[in-house]
């Protein structure tokens, strides 16, 4: 697989404080890559290194196979967490300026801006000053400015903060569309719901170190514990069923639903082998439901971070 960005043993210290310890990452092309971690873990430092705002003390970052160099800023788009615009500058003029800083010609920037303004139906904002817009409106402009130069790599740091749910949805769709068009996206957040929805790959950074990375589906597979939820239809809430099941599996929780006459049972299999589970269950009642419990990104996040807290 081709990688848009590869980091090799990147370390960075601020005085006595080490912000990044030997981070190595491979970010595949044309995917949405979740960069996760609690506040202060080092995500922003890593992103600033990719944007060449700061430089690593040691280690190398490769962009599209070449060591990161000043000309790469034109191929990278960055929406920082701490973001804003010149308040007293007009929307159109400001967008043109920022696009030109990214290397677009004025005419090119203008025609692309027109497209975006049409798409978002905000053409009448062109001559307004940022301070006359609402926070959500300003965030939309900020998003357009970030993606206008059609970068190969887009970096979003908490992109949905500052948006109401409707506009957050609009932005999410735009991010997915950009990915469809071939853009690689780094998505930094500590909110796990959006990770589930968007990310194919993730890396978890905690206390300046990478503690987990890979394909989200594979990580989930690695984190599952052969736990299944089942609904078993029986007429009587007899404990015999639970006892019998307890001989083959470990029963984690059970509850009898009086209205629907069934047990809701959560059980853990001794191995990954699921052969015979269904027949075993069918011995004691009607199997109304049987599903494997896949850990959520949130579960994985909390488990990994807490595990690190415990063992150092």
């Amino acid at each position, binding site marked *: 697989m081709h990688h848009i960005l590869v980091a090799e043993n990147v370390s960075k210290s601020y005085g006595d404080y080490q912000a990044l310890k030997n981070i190595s990452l491979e970010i595949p092309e044309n995917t949405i890559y979740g960069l996760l971690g609690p506040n202060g873990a080092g995500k922003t430092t890593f992103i600033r290194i990719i944007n060449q705002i700061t430089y690593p003390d040691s280690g190398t970052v490769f962009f599209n196979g070449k060591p990161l160099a000043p000309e790469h800023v034109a191929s990278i788009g960055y929406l920082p967490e*701490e973001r804003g615009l*010149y308040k*007293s500058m007009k929307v159109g003029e400001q967008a043109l*300026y920022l696009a030109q*800083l990214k290397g677009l010609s004025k005419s090119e920037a203008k025609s692309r801006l027109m497209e975006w303004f049409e798409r978002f139906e905000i053409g009448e904002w062109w001559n307004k000053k940022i301070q006359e817009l609402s926070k959500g409106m300003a965030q939309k402009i900020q998003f357009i400015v970030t993606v206008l130069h059609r970068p190969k790599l887009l970096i979003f740091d908490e992109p949905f903060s500052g948006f109401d749910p409707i506009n957050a949805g609009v932005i999410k769709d735009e991010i997915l569309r950009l990915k469809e068009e071939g853009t690689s996206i780094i998505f930094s957040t500590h909110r796990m719901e959006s990770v589930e929805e968007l990310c194919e790959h993730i890396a978890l950074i905690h206390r300046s170190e990478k503690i987990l990375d890979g394909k989200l589906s594979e990580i989930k597979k690695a984190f599952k514990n052969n736990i299944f939820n089942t609904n078993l239809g029986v007429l009587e809430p007899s404990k015999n069923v639970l006892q019998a099941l307890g001989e083959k599996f470990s029963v984690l929780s059970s509850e009898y639903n009086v209205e629907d006459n069934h047990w809701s049972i959560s059980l853990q299999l001794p191995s990954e082998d699921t052969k015979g589970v269904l027949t075993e269950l069918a011995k004691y009642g009607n199997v109304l439901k049987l599903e494997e419990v896949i850990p959520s990104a949130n579960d994985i996040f909390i488990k990994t971070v807490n595990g690190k807290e415990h063992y150092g």
Partner: protein
Amino acid sequence: MERSIMDKLPLIIKREYLAKVRNKSFIIMTILSPILIVGMILLVAYLTKINDNEKRIIAVLNESTFFSGQFKITESTSYIQFRNISLQKAKDSTLSLGYFGLLHIPAGPTMEEAANAAYLFTKENPSTLVTERLERIFQNQLRQERLKGLGVSTDQFSNVEKAYSINLSTFDGQRSIKGINELKAFVGGAFGYAIMMFIIIYGGFVMRSVIEEKTSRIIEVIISSIKPFQLMLGKIIGTSLAGITQFVIWIVSASILLFLSVAFLEIDLSELSGGTSLPGPGMNNVSQLSATPMEGEILVYAKEIINIPWALLIGSFLVYFILGYLIYSSIYAAIGAAVDNETDTQQFIFPIILPLMLAIYVGFFSVFSNPHGPIAVGFSLFPLTSPIVMLMRLPGGIGDGGVPLWQLLTSIGLLIGAFLGIVWLASKIYRVGILMYGKRPTYKELFRWLKY
């Protein structure tokens, strides 16, 4: 379609320039300042004129046989002689006629005694202007009288009193005149002062612009496209171009306004300087000088001003202005980056203003009187003060009688060194500071940032 990295500097300069010159308060300042300045000048001229037009009338009751005919009408004072009335009546009349005051000289056997017993009665305390004038009249008469006692005639007396001023010359035989050092230093001082004002005004603009980028949180967006140093440089250059624009507009429009108002309102600006002549011993002497040497002196002054090495002065002004401004405004930028809001800047600004103020004071007190003394030399070499102090020394030229060439070159060399060092340090603080939010940093923290 793609631009190279360094192409972006003009973009930044253009934005900073436009952001500044389109700013409402900037436009208002640009338009109002010349009007205010010219208005002030006209007001002062007008008030001076009114002040001069006020005439004092002093009643004189001279019961002695001395001082008669000595109280002559001047521009601002006339004297009315009272005769053969009592002192009380004279006082009453003075009051009822609304005169300024009453001078009473009682009868006495000698001039000395009469003078000693003389009184000036006034409603309010008289200004020293009035009393000095009267005292001089008495003094003159008394001196003549005393000399007469020693056998000196009136003719001889006026001979003795003839004013004297020393002739001055430089060693190479050029005639020089009193006050020329001050005049030259004043010309240089004007340049130095302009540099200081420019630094304080537009350095402050640079600082506020940096703070604005921090508080609006656009800074991280910008520096993901360009280097912080480019942004700082573009900001400093753009702001200074806006400053130069403003200065040029001020100078041109103030000159035009002044010219027009002088032409139409017929206000004599010379009244500002010469009109309010302070009667003092010096002025007395000047008035007794015959006309020819006066004109000669003006010619010499004019010649000296023309002889000021203008090319050298203006050339050096540009060098000192550019380097000095870059040094100071990069410090201003670093301060702006270190803080989150303008109120936090005070503790950092004072140490910057200090060398500037020092340069101006040292300039006015030491360089004016002795342009080549050790203090003047020291401060014109030290990079933080040299842009101002050296310019005060330079109107004397370089080489013989002026600034030794090595001093000028050393001063510029040190300034370039300081420029490189300070801009390097300031850009490091700037680079770290713009991404730091939260509490106001201490000097210790700023020092740590240098190592990031």
